[in-house]
């Protein structure tokens, strides 16, 4: 059986988790509160671990070792969406990105628990459970800051408008979309996006924030095809520095 479609799906999910995990880890020692510092570091560890497990599935399908795949590719070989590679910016932006992204991932892994590809379905059960803590964290803070002071509301509103075009890029359709659906591997980006918008609205409607109409927004596509912003390569260089110096080092 030809696994091109399946591999592409696994790569984009693994790359998303790895890159956002790395961005989250940049909050270590920098968070606005010690609790938030710990939360972002902890989510970073989860995400990097999850990416590793997904690279392991790819390895079982004949791709290279997880470390090699994670640390020796160039930006144009990465399939993550542009959203996850953007710099952390202010806390508002990181929080909104975390909310928009993790809402999508929680739903994606929930859908994947029903995948016809058994190893992925099994892993998805586990990742889905872990992501509950991530979405709980995001929802709690968005609800709190999205209804707190005039300043916090306007800052989050600005971050939301800034992040939304990139967030829609999560759902950039794959050239193999139809094959994945037909083979029962994944129900597809379109179904995911529909579920996502409902969930995002559910949380945003409990705040003073207003969600721009997604139909009026042009999604930032390209990431899934290896077309990235200028921010990805420096991140990869930094991430792989240790590995390039000593490929046997633990990370």
């Amino acid at each position: 059986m030809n696994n091109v479609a399946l591999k592409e799906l696994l790569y984009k999910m693994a790359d998303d988790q790895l890159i956002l995990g790395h961005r989250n880890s940049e909050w270590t020692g920098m968070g606005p509160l010690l609790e938030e510092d710990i939360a972002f570091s902890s989510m970073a560890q989860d995400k990097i671990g999850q990416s590793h497990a997904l690279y392991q599935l790819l390895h079982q399908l004949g791709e290279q070792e997880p470390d090699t795949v994670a640390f020796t590719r160039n930006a144009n070989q990465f399939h993550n969406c542009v959203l996850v590679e953007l710099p952390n910016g202010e806390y508002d932006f990181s929080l909104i990105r975390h909310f928009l992204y993790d809402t999508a991932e929680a739903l994606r892994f929930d859908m994947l628990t029903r995948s016809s590809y058994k190893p992925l379905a099994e892993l998805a059960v586990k990742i889905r459970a872990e992501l509950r803590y991530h979405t709980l964290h995001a929802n709690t803070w968005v609800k709190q800051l999205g209804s707190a002071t005039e300043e916090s509301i306007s800052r989050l509103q600005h971050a939301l408008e800034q992040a939304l075009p990139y967030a829609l890029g999560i759902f950039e359709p794959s050239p193999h979309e139809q094959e994945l659906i037909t083979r029962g591997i994944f129900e597809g980006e379109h179904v995911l996006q529909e579920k996502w918008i409902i969930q995002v609205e559910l949380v945003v409607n409990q705040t003073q924030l207003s969600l721009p109409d997604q139909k009026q927004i042009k999604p930032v596509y390209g990431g899934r095809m290896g077309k990235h912003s200028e921010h990805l390569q420096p991140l990869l260089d930094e991430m792989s520095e240790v590995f390039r110096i000593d490929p046997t080092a633990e990370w």
Partner: protein
Amino acid sequence: MPYTEKQILEWLDGVKDPEIPVLSLVDLGVITGIDIKEESVVIEMTPTFVGCPALDMMKSDVLTVLKEKGVKHAEVEINFKKSWSSDKITEKGRRALKQFGLAPPPAGKVLLEDLDILEHVPCPRCSSTNTELKNPFGPTLCRSIHYCNECREAFEQFKPV
């Protein structure tokens, strides 16, 4: 010499979680299968959290014990066929956690839809439920941080997953 599953479980009961030295891997519930074929033993394990940094150590501790006991050919296979959740921790494991000062996760299947489940966790010192959740993310992936209003001290819980 053929091995029995019971015997191997006894040996593995001596292997402790590197982060919680009172809890054996058997009580933690991460040993999901034992396959014995003559002189060779394959242990199936599954991580508590996908990114658990202690997994490699657990794996090598298992191999070390089996080797010490004279198993000729031992292997550990990590997979997610039987996904770990906190209700896999045994009754004995729960008691060990409490004695260690870590609140055990609530028993039974936990449907984590709200942070509420993490509020009012019984304090492992005084058993009071007059406690608050401080942070669902603790010093390691498997712990959350709480505060007991009776003892006026923080404590950690082994997180329900």
